């Protein structure tokens, strides 16, 4: 006990002393090396993911952790390579010349974890359930004439009018990929979570060991037959080299980093950039960017209520904001962030920076003030929602609030936990009555990389994403985009959309940042992909 009180009196800074004291103790105490006693089995990878897995139905939620879980235990018909090109995965595909009929042929050897073969009927049921939830899927089903299993191996999808991006949507990895489940599972209502977790993916979900929010264990699926092709982004052969993958959640980043350094875990999906020096100092740990596209962070205003119902005031807000302070605060190290005004993300085919000079520059508070003046802003307070419990979302509101205030906005920043925020942002009430004016969130770049899937780029009023812009011009542009047949035409329309989105301030892109993962050096061959996947990867001794 005297030792204990001594340690209390030792300040955090007076580290040398405590080490000396402890070293003296060490001389007389048999020390059990922590790592040795707790060493993991060589065939298991223990990974700390960005969040704890709680929801197991990858169709009902868009949460990334659940999507990642989907990729572990389910497979998809078509997947994208690093050029965003759809490639066969479970199925080869063919498109009729009129562009109305798509045929998917399941490859041989596909089996569910319960040993049953994967049939076309399973695929059809899964696609239908997905189509009820996914906004891209809804677009397709709006014009679907029929979707049926023409035999055990063939799925035939007939449209009433041509829809160029169908394969892009079916092969996308965000937000909801069409995972193939057994028909009996896929028949669950799309509003109810599934309770049977049988998939056909490269890993089997070990249900007994599942602790929601804490840990989830995946065992290698021995009967999985990978494709012949080498792995390429989300496409190619999914060869599993380890017996078990265990995801554990560590809400405290500090703890996770320490655990990685001491070898208690093998992999850390999301590494706070500020803490990289600790990891870089460790010879046993590799720090790397997994996905060169990364995330877009953005702010969204509420079009329904003053003052942001006025386009001029929205423009003023955009002028007031500048990406660098936001990104610098959020990420810190400039190596891992990038100013980017592109609505569809930088590094994507549709990238365009039109109209975002002030955003990527230092902002233009003077112009913002002038615009506010012109619009006759009366000082109506702006309710800015700030989540307190999501690390990647705490900086944006705080920095933006300061920028808006400097431009003359009256900002009422209201702190709340993320769950309150997601509830409140669904409220269309006036800001003073439980509504809101502006909030911030992050997207993976592939999730916003095209007008088809970018949730914000939607002008359907109450049916649009939170903020509910009523923007027929935008909808026209989107229709044009869907109808476009060539990549060049798409690119040209996308640029017009970019200009329009920034002009009406549909939302405010606040730049891009890169997710940094870290791993023990004996974890090799991780695929650079937007989704952290555990095929191909191996653990050496």
């Amino acid at each position: 006990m005297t030792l204990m009180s001594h340690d209390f009196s030792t300040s955090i800074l007076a580290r040398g002393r405590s080490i000396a004291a402890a070293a003296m103790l060490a001389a007389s105490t048999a020390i059990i090396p922590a790592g040795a006693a707790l060493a993991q089995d060589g065939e298991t990878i223990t990974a700390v993911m960005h969040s704890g897995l709680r929801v197991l139905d990858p169709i009902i939620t868009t949460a990334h952790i659940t999507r990642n879980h989907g990729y572990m235990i389910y497979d998809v018909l078509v997947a994208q390579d690093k050029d965003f090109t759809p490639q066969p995965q479970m199925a080869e595909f063919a498109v009729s010349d009129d562009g109305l009929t798509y045929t998917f042929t399941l490859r041989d050897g596909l089996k569910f974890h319960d040993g049953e073969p994967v049939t076309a009927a399973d695929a059809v049921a899964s696609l239908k359930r997905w189509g009820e939830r996914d906004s891209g899927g809804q677009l397709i089903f709006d014009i679907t004439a029929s979707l049926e299993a023409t035999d055990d191996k063939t799925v035939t999808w007939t449209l009433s009018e041509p829809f160029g991006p169908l394969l892009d949507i079916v092969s996308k990895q965000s937000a909801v990929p069409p995972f193939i489940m057994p028909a009996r599972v896929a028949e669950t209502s799309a509003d109810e979570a599934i309770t049977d977790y049988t998939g056909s993916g490269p890993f089997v979900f070990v249900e007994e060991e599942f602790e929601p929010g804490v840990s989830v264990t995946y065992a290698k699926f021995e009967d999985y037959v990978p494709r012949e092709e080498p792995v390429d982004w989300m496409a190619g052969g999914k060869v599993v080299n380890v017996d078990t993958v265990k995801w554990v959640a560590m809400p405290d980043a500090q703890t996770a980093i320490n655990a990685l350094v001491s070898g208690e875990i093998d992999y850390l999906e999301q590494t706070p950039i500020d803490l990289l020096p600790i990891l870089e100092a460790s010879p046993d740990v590799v720090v790397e960017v997994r996905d060169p596209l990364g995330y877009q962070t953005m702010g969204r205003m509420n079009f329904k209520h003053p003052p942001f119902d006025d386009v001029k005031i929205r423009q003023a807000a955009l002028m007031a904001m500048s990406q660098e302070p936001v990104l610098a605060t959020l990420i810190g190290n400039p190596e891992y962030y990038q100013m980017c005004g592109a609505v569809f993300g930088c590094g994507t085919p549709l990238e365009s920076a039109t109209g975002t000079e002030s955003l990527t520059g230092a902002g233009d508070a003077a112009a913002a003030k002038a615009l506010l003046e012109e619009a006759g802003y009366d000082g109506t307070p702006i309710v800015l929602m700030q989540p307190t419990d999501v690390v990647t979302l705490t900086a944006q509101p705080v920095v933006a609030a300061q920028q808006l205030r400097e431009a003359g906005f009256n900002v009422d920043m209201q702190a709340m936990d993320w769950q309150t925020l997601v509830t409140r942002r669904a409220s269309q009430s006036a800001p003073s009555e439980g509504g809101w004016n502006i909030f911030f969130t992050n997207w993976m770049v592939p999730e916003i990389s095209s007008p088809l899937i970018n949730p914000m780029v939607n002008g359907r009023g109450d049916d649009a994403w939170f903020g509910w812009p009523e923007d027929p011009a935008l909808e026209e542009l989107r229709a044009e985009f869907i109808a476009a047949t060539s990549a060049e035409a798409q690119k040209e329309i996308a640029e017009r959309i970019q200009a329009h989105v920034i002009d009406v301030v549909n939302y405010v892109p606040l730049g891009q940042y890169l997710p940094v993962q870290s791993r023990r050096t004996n974890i090799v061959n991780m695929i650079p992909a937007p989704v952290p996947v555990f095929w191909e990867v191996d653990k050496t001794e």
Partner: protein
Amino acid sequence: MLGYIIRRILAVIPVMAIVAIFVFLLLRLTPGDPAAIIAGDSATPAQLDRIRESLGLSEPLHVQLVTWIGQLFRGDLGTSIISNQPVTRLIGQRIWPTLQIGTLTIILSVLIAVPLGVLAAWRHRTWVDYAVMTFSVLGFSIPVFVIGYIFIKIFAIDLRWLPVQGYSAPSENLQAFFLRAILPCLTLATIYVALIARMTRASMLEVLGEDYVRTARAKGVKERIVLFRHALRNAAVPIMTIIGTGFALLISGVVVTESVFNIPGIGRLTVDAILARDYPVIQAMILLTSAIYVFVNLLIDISYTFFDPRIRY
């Protein structure tokens, strides 16, 4: 005695009923919508409505309450809205780390604190007394997570004696369990030791002034026996009481410690559930922790009869 126990158990019923209704209403008045949490970022309002419907959250409040209480009587704590797992299963998975760490902490604390308190009272107004009191006030004055971080820094990072985090089931690897339990237990014990040592000292000081202690000394009984046989047993009731009421403090500490040391216990389960508005889990957890608290204190009340023959019910 049996009659007393039955009466005490019956007296628990209204308390638990008030807890249940209180918690139910509190949660339903909390802004937050589990449907929005389940559906994720890009759900539309119509989808939210449908999910809410399927969760039974669109029923009137009193109907939900009656349904829930009906379930409780059948021993059904409901199903987590978020993970779709039965709450009983979640509790079954998560309660053991908490109980083990908690029990270990209590044992450790009592073993450290009671002798310290006795010593301080016996050496009243000497440096021993002042040292114990200073330590105990210090234990109250540093946030538990700071203590945890300091321990991690010293024992896990700098000295590398102990693991940084985590939990191993004792059934799987007893050594690993103890290695991983040491730091969380020490962290939690700091405040608990402080609490119990203070109460032991105060209670002993009072008892040492009693006539029967003087009688024992007048009989020529050895000082050690005076302290432990005569005084401590008479001082035991307030010490037991503080162990019981301090149990609430332990629960608070557990919540924090579990997140510092990444222990998959019920503390984290509950905090996560509150932040996610997982109503069935929150209700069940608060009911459970309250029931544990009430139960522990019931046991302690009954234990008084062991320490003090005058207490007969």
